[in-house]
């Protein structure tokens, strides 16, 4: 068993951003490059070429070898199906990891990744930026401090356009599925952070929206219903139902209903509008996520959203996929 490398508290953290396949790579690279406490390299083995103004290397090997002792941590922004190899390699090298969501395309892969990082003593966190949105923080607070009384139900919507510019997002092999894989996990993570894992999952999907552009077999619409042992029920609309010509990519809303009243949050509501205008001014949650990760690397201990919650949200998706196959609700403990 290897142990995580010691972090020199006086030196910049050596971070390798692995792959530019995910559209978030550009944003993470910009935020990391701007920090004085980070020394960044970016691996772009697929040659996307749109992460600029930073030290871009043509292969993963070059990124692993960018420093004599290797990186302190990596940020994994590859296609979903490639997360596992990068994370297992990081664990082997004793390198900390922030991995894009969904953590993996199969429950087995996600489990192996969490186990390897745990055994290696490295930090593994899952990139759920919306975890840090002040609206989500307000929701967690209102539920935990009893403002909403006894919560009986929630409805979440994480709708967006079909991801553009990166075809792998709708390639079932590389992404693990379509909208249900892409968009269920954000709200599943928020619910997990308040209520823990659900007991059962039921899901229905279709591919009517963006049918010509989505990869073969990728669902573009979906409704995922969760039940909890407490009796609580929740449904997530994970559809890519934002029209292509809408002024913004989509959004994330959650509504909680309790004996003490209702709360609805919209994590992307903050914007200046106008005809066909959408100027977001809300909190940069990517920056908060990176802050939390870098602090966790220095402390040697993961904080939420951890790899474990990433694994539990992959379990929700796996149960949802099984439910689509069988047409019946599926117990999460049995996937």
């Amino acid at each position, binding site marked *: 068993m290897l142990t995580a490398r010691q972090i020199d508290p006086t030196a910049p953290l050596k971070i390798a951003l692995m792959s530019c396949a995910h559209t978030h790579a550009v944003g993470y690279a910009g935020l990391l490059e701007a920090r004085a406490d980070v020394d960044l390299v970016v691996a772009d083995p697929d040659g996307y070429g749109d992460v600029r103004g930073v030290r871009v290397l043509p292969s993963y090997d070059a990124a692993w070898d960018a420093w004599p002792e290797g990186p302190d941590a990596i940020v994994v922004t590859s296609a979903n199906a490639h997360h596992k190899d990068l994370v297992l390699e990081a664990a082997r090298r004793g390198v900390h990891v922030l991995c894009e969501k969904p953590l993996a395309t199969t429950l087995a892969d996600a489990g192996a990744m969490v186990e390897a990082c745990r055994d290696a003593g490295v930090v593994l966190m899952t990139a759920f930026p919306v975890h840090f949105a002040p609206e989500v923080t307000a929701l967690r607070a209102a539920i935990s401090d009893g403002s909403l*009384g*006894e919560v*009986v*139900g929630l*409805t979440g*919507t994480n*709708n967006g356009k079909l991801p553009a510019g990166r075809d792998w997002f709708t390639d079932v092999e590389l992404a693990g599925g379509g909208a249900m894989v892409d968009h269920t996990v954000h709200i599943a993570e928020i619910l997990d952070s308040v209520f823990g894992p659900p007991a*059962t999952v*039921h899901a*229905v*999907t*279709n591919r*009517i*929206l*963006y*049918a010509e552009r989505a990869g073969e077999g990728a669902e*573009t*619409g*979906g*409704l995922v*219903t969760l*039940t909890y042992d407490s*009796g*609580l*029920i929740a*449904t997530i*609309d994970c*559809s890519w*139902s*934002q*029209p292509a010509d*809408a002024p913004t990519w989509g959004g994330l809303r959650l509504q909680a*209903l*309790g*004996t*003490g*009243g*209702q709360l609805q949050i919209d994590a992307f509501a903050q914007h200046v509008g106008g005809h066909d205008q959408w100027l977001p001014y809300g909190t940069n949650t990517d920056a908060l996520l990176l802050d939390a990760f870098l602090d966790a690397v220095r402390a040697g201990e993961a904080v939420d959203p951890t790899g474990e919650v990433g694994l539990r949200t992959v379990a929700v998706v796996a149960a949802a996929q099984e439910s689509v196959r069988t*047409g*019946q*609700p599926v117990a999460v403990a049995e996937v």
Partner: protein
Amino acid sequence: MNPSAIPDADAQQEAPRPLRVGIVGTGGISRAHLPGWTELGAQLHCFSLSGAEEFAAETGAVLHSTLEELLAAVDVVDVCTPTPEHPGVVRAALDAGKDVICEKPLALTGEEARELAEHAERVGRRLFPAHVVRYFPQYAAAKRAVDTGAVGELAVLRFERTGSLPDRSWYADEELSGGIVMDQMIHDIDQALWLAGPVSSVYAQQSVASSDAAVSTAHVVLTHRSGAISHCRGFWGPQGTRFRYTFELAGDGGLLQYDSAGDPGIVFDEVASARRGSGDGFLPDVSTLRDPYAAEIVEFAAALSTGAPTRVDAADGVAAVEISRAALESLRTGRSIAC
């Protein structure tokens, strides 16, 4: 069906005598039906096991002491009783040769609802289930847009309905009202059927607060034969909950959204609102709309004289009950139910 089906003032003047309507059951919803009958200049008759005297005093309706007496005196019957009484009153009215408007749900079981529709067919009378939401202009506008292809092929539909548990005790008894699914959500189940067509499977979950049985929510997921999927979310909230209804219809050619909590055109600030009363949370505030309850009564009455189809008919009422029953079956078994 279309605005021309609504009779104009001239047509009313040509009528030999006013339409005589017998309102059976004089609780909350009968008051919502009144403006429509008033607009038609109908002569009101009423019979109810309780509250009929007050209703007659309020409205000038002719009070009848038995259902038989009422049936003998009217042209059309408007059934506003608690749901369990619907089938008996509807059958009696049909057997007396009357056309019938019946509040939703038509009956508590699909079999009984279907039997009522067949009964009407057999005796050659019309049976109109009062699915009033089809007459709310927001839903009617969405339906027209969907039918003309404005959003392409429908894919994912979401409906929300929020209110508080009606304050009459029979609503709280699931045996009598069918609970939140059969009483409140049936409106949105009907909308889903109207907009996206027949359903092949139903999955439902419900949660009743353990600390306050008046607070409950239900989620129903419908898979339509077209491939579209619908989510209906009902909520009976704590006391003071404002009535609210929303929908979002996503198709491959666009998106339609409505939220009754959005700007209705008249907005009092908090200071002004505090000086005014608010609604009871049981029925929506329709004061800024063409009254949908009146619109449905007027359309039904017009259809009786013209024989024209109405935008909701007995078969629709049966389908709404059948799908709602499938949802209750799903609640009971925890399974998805094939339809």
